[in-house]
Each structure stands twice: as C-alpha cells, then as structure tokens.
C-alpha cells in the first residue's frame, strides 16, 4: 500500500544503545477547568531527542504542541500541571529537580524561543540588559564583561550596529530583530537543547527564511539539538532530521523526515501532507483538506481522537478505533505510528519503538 523506498541516509539521531540527550516517557499535562473538568493537553507522550539532532514537532493549532514544549522545561503554570511521566536530560530527571537546580538547568543547558518575540522581551529593560542577564546571573560575569558579551552575541545573530542596539528598547525593534535577540539570549550560554515554539509564525515570509537559516546554523555550530515546534510542513522539510506529528495531545506518528514526508503511515499525517501546497503544483488544483476540526480535549472518548475525521477508519470500517487507544506500530526502523490502520511496511523488530 505504501511506496517501499527506504531512503538510507546517515542517521543524525542517537544510535540505539546510546542514551539520548532528552528522553521523555509517558508525559501527561493536565489543565483543571472551572467546574472540576480536566483537560489533558498532552497525553502519554514518549519522545527522544538525540544530541545535535533537529526534531520537528508538527500539529494544528490546539494540538498541544506548545504545552508539550513548555512541559519539557516545566514551565506550565497553574491551572496546568504535568501529572505523569518522566523527563530525563542526559540521564538526570528533570521532574525531580529542585527550584534551584531547575533554574540552573534552564539557564545553562536548555534555551527556548517563542512565537511572539516582541512580547517576550521586557518592555522597560534595554536589549543589552536582557541579553547580558544570563551571563550576569548564570556565568557570574562582571557587568562590564556581560555587557561586552551581549554586544558580541547580538553581532553573532546578525543584528546590525550591535553597539547601539544594546541600548535600544524592545519596542524599537522589528519582529525579525526581536527574534534574533531572543535567539541570542537563548544561545548565550551554548545550551545543549534549544526549543523553538513556532519561531517564525509571527514574522514576515521574507524574514522567516533568514531566521530559520540562523537557527540551523547556530545550532549546527554549537552542536545544539533543536526541537522545532511548528504547524508548517515546509519548515520541517527544510530543517528537520526527524519529525513527530501531534494530534489532540498525542504523538501519532514519528520518524525520519524523508520517510515521513514521502511515505506517511498515519491517516492524519497523510491528510496534513495532502493539505500542504506543493511547489510546482498546477494552479487551480484544490488542496485536500481534512474534514472536521480538532476535538474538544476535555470531552475525548475512549478511542482514537482522530477517528471521527479519519478516512481510513471509514474505508476499512474498523470498530476498535472508537473503542480503545491504538498502540504504537513500528512501520520501519525508527518510524512508528499510533494507528490501528497503519501497517508495518517491512519486517522490523518492535523493540525500536518505545524505550
């Protein structure tokens, strides 16, 4: 049923028996709503990120990918809470870190950039102050050294005239410049992992390419792993080594970018790719959309959350879809899908799937 072209590329991800940089198992994040209802924005997510790897996390708005990104850094604020799961960073348990350890870890080992760069910069503090802050607080540099460091960092992310820009306030920057500043702050202490939550969504199309290029180059140079959260498959195709697709709080499919984009196994991924415009596509051809909308996460049934919108279920008349959660199916090495309809395309031992 699927093209069997197994593209063998050098694997950038972690080899099987080496511990990944970040290992997430069974992560579940819950929000308490008014009236006692609970909403699980992230459900039982397993995900590894290897050293130096770029992992694209794709999903529609409301699929839970931002909450997932924030859960990794334990940034979710009440009424939200990580209620289950383990996060291991280089073998250390993030969930067990004290407030102090957490601060240190966030400051040194991981960085995060967000969708709205301008609202992520403190409006009453100078740019230089904000870029110098990690150097000042984490590295304990002197004020002068930290300020000089800020100028260097701004230069490194391509801000023109950094000696002047350190004195500017956030409202004096364009969106693209603000995102460059955010990248400078996030990479100030050469973290091992950078989480970018829709880093180019709020930017001009012309700026998007520049920022993505900057992200890729910076991460490659520092050997930093990148978790790139986006709804844009084009961004993923350009940058990512591996892709994970999120739907209704679960990772429904995960695999190397080449096979994911050419031979997706999950009906939702197939729908996403079908709905994306292709370069060189004839004009006037209608894009295929996925019928229906994302379900209300507080009112999910027992079965697969995608079942009501699923073509495969309708076609094959699978009863189990609405009755129980599908288990991960290994499609091929390092490629798995959460679907009753998906079939392994080659004989692969299932031990590749989950830790």
């Amino acid at each position: 049923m699927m093209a069997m072209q197994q593209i063998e590329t050098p694997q950038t991800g972690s080899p099987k028996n080496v511990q990944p940089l970040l290992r997430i198992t069974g992560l579940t994040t819950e929000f308490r709503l008014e009236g006692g209802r609970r909403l699980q924005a992230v459900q039982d997510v397993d995900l590894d990120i290897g050293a130096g790897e770029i992992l694209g996390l794709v999903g529609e708005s409301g699929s839970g990918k931002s909450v997932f990104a924030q859960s990794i850094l334990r940034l979710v604020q009440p009424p939200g809470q990580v209620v289950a799961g383990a996060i291991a960073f280089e073998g250390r348990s993030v969930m067990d870190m004290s407030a102090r350890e957490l601060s240190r870890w966030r400051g040194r080992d991981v960085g995060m950039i967000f969708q709205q760069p301008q609202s992520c910069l403190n409006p009453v503090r100078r740019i230089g102050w904000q870029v110098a802050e990690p150097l000042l607080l984490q590295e304990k540099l002197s004020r002068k050294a930290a300020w000089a460091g800020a100028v260097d960092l701004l230069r490194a992310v391509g801000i023109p005239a950094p000696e002047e820009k350190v004195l500017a306030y956030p409202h004096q920057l364009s969106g693209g410049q603000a995102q460059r500043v955010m990248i400078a702050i996030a990479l100030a202490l050469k973290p091992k992992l950078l989480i970018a939550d829709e880093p180019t969504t709020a930017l001009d199309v012309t700026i998007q390419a520049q920022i993505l290029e900057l992200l890729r180059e910076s991460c490659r140079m520092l050997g930093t792993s990148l978790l790139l959260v986006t709804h844009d498959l084009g961004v993923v195709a350009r940058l990512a080594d591996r892709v994970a697709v999120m739907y209704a709080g679960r990772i429904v499919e995960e695999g190397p970018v080449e096979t994911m984009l050419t031979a997706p196994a999950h009906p939702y991924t197939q729908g996403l790719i079908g709905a994306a415009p292709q370069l060189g596509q004839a004009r006037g051809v209608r894009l295929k959309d996925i019928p229906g909308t994302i379900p209300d996460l507080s009112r999910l049934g027992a079965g697969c959350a995608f079942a009501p919108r699923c073509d495969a279920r309708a076609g094959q008349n699978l009863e189990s879809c609405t009755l129980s959660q599908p288990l991960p199916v290994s499609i091929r090495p390092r490629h798995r899908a959460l679907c009753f309809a998906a079939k392994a395309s080659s004989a692969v031992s299932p031990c590749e799937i989950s830790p």
Partner: protein
Amino acid sequence: MLQYVARRLLLLIPVVIGILLVTFLMKALIPTDAVTAIYSGTLSEKDAAEAIATLRAKYHLDLPWYQQFYIYVRDLMSGDFGESIRLRKPVMDELGYRYVNTIILTLAALAIALVVGLTTGILAAVKRNSWLDVTATTIGLFGISMPAFFFGLLLILVFAVWLRWLPVVPRGTMALLLPAVALGLIEAAPISQVARTSMIDVLGRDYIQAARARGASEFALVVRHALPNALIVVLTLVGLQIGNLLGGAFIIEAIFGWHGIGELAVNAIEWRDFTLTQAIILISAATYLVVNLVADILYAWLDPRVELNS
C-alpha cells in the same frame, strides 16, 4: 529628557495664571467682605464706618477688581503674600513653618503608604488566593471605604484612650506617629490593590515566561522583571494620591493638633481671614502642580515607551 521637562514647565504657565485668578476671585464670590466681618458688632455704627473705610483702602478693596488683581499678582511676584487679617502679621511668617510641617506629615504618610501598600500588594499577587491575599484584600476594602479622619479618631480612641500607650495630645516626634499612620494606612489600601492587580497582570505576560525559561529564579522574576513594569501603574496612582494626602492632611491635622497648613486652613476659614486662606490655597495648588510634574517625569523615566518628543 531636559526638553520634555522644559516643555512641561512651559505648559504650567497658563495653569498658574488660572490658579491665581481663581484664588483671587474667591474673595469676590464670598458674601461678606473681610473688613466688615471683623468689625461687625464690635464698634458703634459711626466708628465702624470710619475704621472700615480705612481698612478697605489699606487692602485695596475700594479699587476696581482688575486693579486689585494686578496688585495681588505684583505683590506675589515680590514674595509678598499679604498680611493676615486676623494674626496681624505677614502670612508667610505663619505659613512657612506650617508648610514644612505639612510636608513632613505627607512624606511620612507617603512612606508608610508605599511600604505597606507595595509589600502587601506584591505579596498578595505572588501568593494569589492564599490566606495572605484574602486577608490583605479584605483589610484593603475597609481601608478604601473608611475616611482618614474617622480612622484617625479610631486610632486615638484605641491607642490614647483605651490602651494609654500614647498621650491624647503628644508632643515632638511622637505627635507625628498617629496622624502619619492614620493617613498612611488609609492610602496604603488603594496602592496595595493597584500593586496586586498590575503585578498579577505583569506576571502573566510572555516576557515573564520567557525570563523563567532562561533560568530566572522566581525571586528574580518578581523583583528584576515584573516589578519595574508594575511600578509604572502604581506611580500613576501615587501621583494622584499625593493630592489626596494633602487634602486628607487638612482634616487629620485639625484632629491631631498637628500644626500644619491644614489646621491653619480650618482656622483661617473660621476667621474669615481671606489673605491667609488665599495664600494657603495658592500654596496647596502649587504643591499639587509640582507633585504632578515630578510624577510625569518619573513616569517617562520608568517607561521607555512614553514618547518624550511627541
């Protein structure tokens, strides 16, 4: 910044002229004239008429109003605020030290209001919905609903009459304690509420989450990142409140026997002492102007988004 200050000062000129006109015209609007008020009933008809005529001439009450206004402004320019009709001495002799007293009381009250208001407001915001928050908010409601003079009387009743920790009419620095606490605590209530609201607002902003993501401790988040933003809102309120403090001081001073311009104003009005009343109103209005100017300059300094050159 200097340019901004200069422009604000220039803008004050028409306001000052307005204040001068109003204080001057007040005299005309009040039904009795000062001299008549002083002499009515104390002298025989004939003697009174003569004395009144002399005094009217002395205070230029016989001239047309615009000439009176000219003399009024000219004298003010040379620092002459006139002579108190009742006290028979230059107004400034009395007003000077009393003004200093009022400023001392206002500043002491402001310090109490800021320390108490900001601390409780920020703590309530950080520990939202805790018992501390609920307690602070409840007490704050009382503070907002209660006039300062009533609270002052309560303090006297509790600490001077019942507990006898303080004399009813204390002297020296002790005399400052109760009126400053009464005024300060009442004004702390709105500061606390505004500090809490704006702090809660700021703590929910993206830049706080971004700072948290890069390793700022919760303490650093509150003090280094959120507070400067929250203070902008609080400052706007405090600028307005200093007016309240001055107004509140008028009544509080009378209750506590604090010799400031407030107490003097109450007396001056009772005495129908127009020159004194005018001078008090003038100096209060000038203080209010200066305070607002300082608040605006601080505002521009705290918030870089305020465009100074537009």
